[in-house]
């Protein structure tokens, strides 16, 4: 067996950003640490350690020894003691895979909480409420792991030895690579089973340590509009999973600016630094413990397509990316789909022919047909056909594929018609009630976003956002070699 140094590394290691070895989250921690940013100390059991664990069916003894050695290193770095007083060290144990599988694998918070640690922790932070919160988060995250992924009834016994907790948690997180949901996720997303997961063991910081503490996420740009203004969420006096669990209602991160201006300013500077170095907008997780800022993760921000379009152009204007790179990013977006339809004039109330459920968005004028076959196929070439059916049958599928919009008398948002219309990306209104009186050939306009069918062919404008026009212009100039 190779030396355990090849399998377990700490934050001081000179490592390349090998995502296959230390996962995405691990790569981000090393990247932030290497820039001297405030990251709680950590060590990582790599995917090679996972492979050895899988082959041996347990963590090999040299790795156990190395983990204990790394815990001593964490103690030295934090000045705390694992599993006891006077200032207890608690850790988080998290998976970090080469491919993000959000929520599929286990995470344990506040591990190392033993009977010997409880009193000193309460004394250090002077709050029984905070300690109770720490206990709840520990039991809530650890019990399922120690129960082997089974449902727990709250009686799962956890070891009182901090080292036993840690070794059990590491093996539990390794094992969660093969839980049912993770396997299913990998299958449908074609992620190789043998990638495996690395495990991050990181010193806990406490966002629940009083009013000057909290946890939050900061987006360096607005993920919906692409506006180059940081935004995000902040939960005061809360720990870790508070935002993602939905147990607490967050407030806008700007409130941190009022509560702790220096911390907010520092966060703002770091966010800007990370974005400039990554040349991508960032999604940053952070915790503030009694006025000290800590970064827990940064990753590329997942934005709406219109926001991605705007960001690519803004980063180009800011000189952060080249024109070639901007075009590459814009090429991955479906720019024509970013245009939307809108009525030129608001429809009159008496123009409403029928109302139903908005099953598939979009606005489409056309003529009503009840069948699409050889008798009206020629018309199909001249007109947008709106297929009107009481409900749909499988033999309507060919007609639905040729229709410009779909209207049904019966059925709901989960009806076959609604499902197929969404797949075909055609406007659809379902459950309109009896429409026997509507003659074949009647001109109508279907608003699948509002769930309304109007009489007559209403004027519709194609709204192309300015930012999309700019993007299209850049791409056509680039393709013609002018750019």
């Amino acid at each position, binding site marked *: 067996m190779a030396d355990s140094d090849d399998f377990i590394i700490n934050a001081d290691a000179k490592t390349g950003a090998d995502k296959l070895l230390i996962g995405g989250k691990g790569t981000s921690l090393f990247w932030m640490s290497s820039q001297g940013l405030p990251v709680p100390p950590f060590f990582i059991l790599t995917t090679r350690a996972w492979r050895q664990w899988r082959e041996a069916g347990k963590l090999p003894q040299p790795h156990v020894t190395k983990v204990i050695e790394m815990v001593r290193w964490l103690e030295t770095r934090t000045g705390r003691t694992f599993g006891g007083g006077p200032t207890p060290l608690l850790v988080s144990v998290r998976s970090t895979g080469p491919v993000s*599988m*959000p*929520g*599929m694998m286990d995470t344990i918070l506040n591990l190392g909480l033993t009977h010997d640690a409880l009193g000193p922790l309460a004394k250090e932070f002077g709050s029984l409420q905070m300690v109770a919160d720490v206990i709840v988060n520990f039991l809530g995250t650890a019990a399922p792991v120690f129960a082997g992924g089974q449902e727990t009834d709250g009686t799962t016994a956890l070891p009182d030895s901090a080292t036993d907790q840690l070794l059990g948690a590491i093996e539990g997180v390794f094992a969660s690579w093969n839980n049912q*949901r993770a396997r*299913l*996720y990998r*299958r*449908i*997303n*074609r992620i190789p089973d043998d990638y495996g997961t690395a495990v991050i063991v990181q010193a806990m910081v406490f966002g629940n340590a009083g009013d000057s503490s909290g946890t939050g996420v900061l987006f360096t740009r607005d993920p919906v509009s692409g506006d180059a203004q940081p935004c995000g969420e902040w939960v005061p006096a809360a720990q870790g999973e508070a935002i993602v669990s939905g147990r607490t209602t967050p407030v806008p991160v700007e409130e941190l600016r009022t509560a702790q201006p220096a911390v907010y300013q520092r966060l703002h500077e770091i966010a800007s630094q990370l974005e400039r170095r990554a040349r991508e907008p960032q999604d940053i997780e952070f915790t503030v413990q009694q006025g000290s800022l800590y970064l827990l993760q940064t990753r590329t921000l*997942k934005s709406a397509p219109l926001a991605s379009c705007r960001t690519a152009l803004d980063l180009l204007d800011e000189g952060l990316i080249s024109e070639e790179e901007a075009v590459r990013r814009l090429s991955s977006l479906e720019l024509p789909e970013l245009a939307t339809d809108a009525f030129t004039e608001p429809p009159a109330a008496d123009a409403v022919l029928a109302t139903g459920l908005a099953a598939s968005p979009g606005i489409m004028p056309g003529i009503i047909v009840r069948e*699409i*076959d*050889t008798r009206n*196929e020629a018309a199909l070439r001249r007109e947008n056909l709106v297929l009107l059916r009481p*409900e749909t*049958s*499988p*033999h309507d*599928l*060919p*007609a*639905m*594929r040729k229709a410009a919009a779909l209207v049904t008398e*019966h*059925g*709901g*948002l*989960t*009806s*076959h018609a*609604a*499902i*197929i219309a*969404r*797949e*075909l990306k055609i406007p659809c209104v379902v459950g309109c009630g009896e429409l026997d009186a509507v003659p074949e050939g009647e001109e109508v306009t279907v608003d699948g976003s509002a769930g309304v069918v109007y009489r007559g062919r209403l004027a519709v404008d194609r709204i192309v956002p300015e930012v999309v026009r700019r993007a299209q212009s850049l791409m056509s100039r680039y393709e013609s070699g002018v750019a």
Partner: protein
Amino acid sequence: MAPGAADSVEGLRTTELLLKILMRGVIEAGSARTLAAEAGLGAEALDNLIAAGAVADDEGLLYVTEPGDRRLTEELHAQLAPGEESSMAAFAEEFGVLDTELKSAVTAWQWAIREEDQDGQVNAVERWLDVDSRLRAAAARAQVPTRLFRTCLARLECARQRVLDGDPDQLSGAQDTSYHSVWFLLHEMLLRTLKREREG
């Protein structure tokens, strides 16, 4: 029983051909002949359907007529042996429940895809797989569906495998081969076999 009904292997194949043409909507004559050959029938089978008025030939474009549509229902119903109707009706009861759950799971899947909600995608897939396994159990218990809808059940299994092999479009896609499209067809065949109308 209608002419050419399901009292022989050829009758069964003719029913299958009629169903396939119906599912295509309007089809060129050459393609219809290919479908006939795939069903193990000669070109005369298609001519017979046209002559019987079950299929119309509009200048080389073929489609199933209303009498042909009724004939198809009669032929599917005729595949039920005496005494099998109650078993099929019990299966239809279970299918009704599963159909609602399937459509709900597929809708949740479409929503999760649109929102890029990976957790939601796995939830939807788990719900769908649960429905799929309960469908197979129900079909096996009733036995008759396993015999009559053998091809449909096999196509569902193919679609299921394709989704699990990393082609998620095969779950809700509008193409004939997707799980949802085949399920839709299975529902239609079940209704016709029992001579029932579709509701909603």
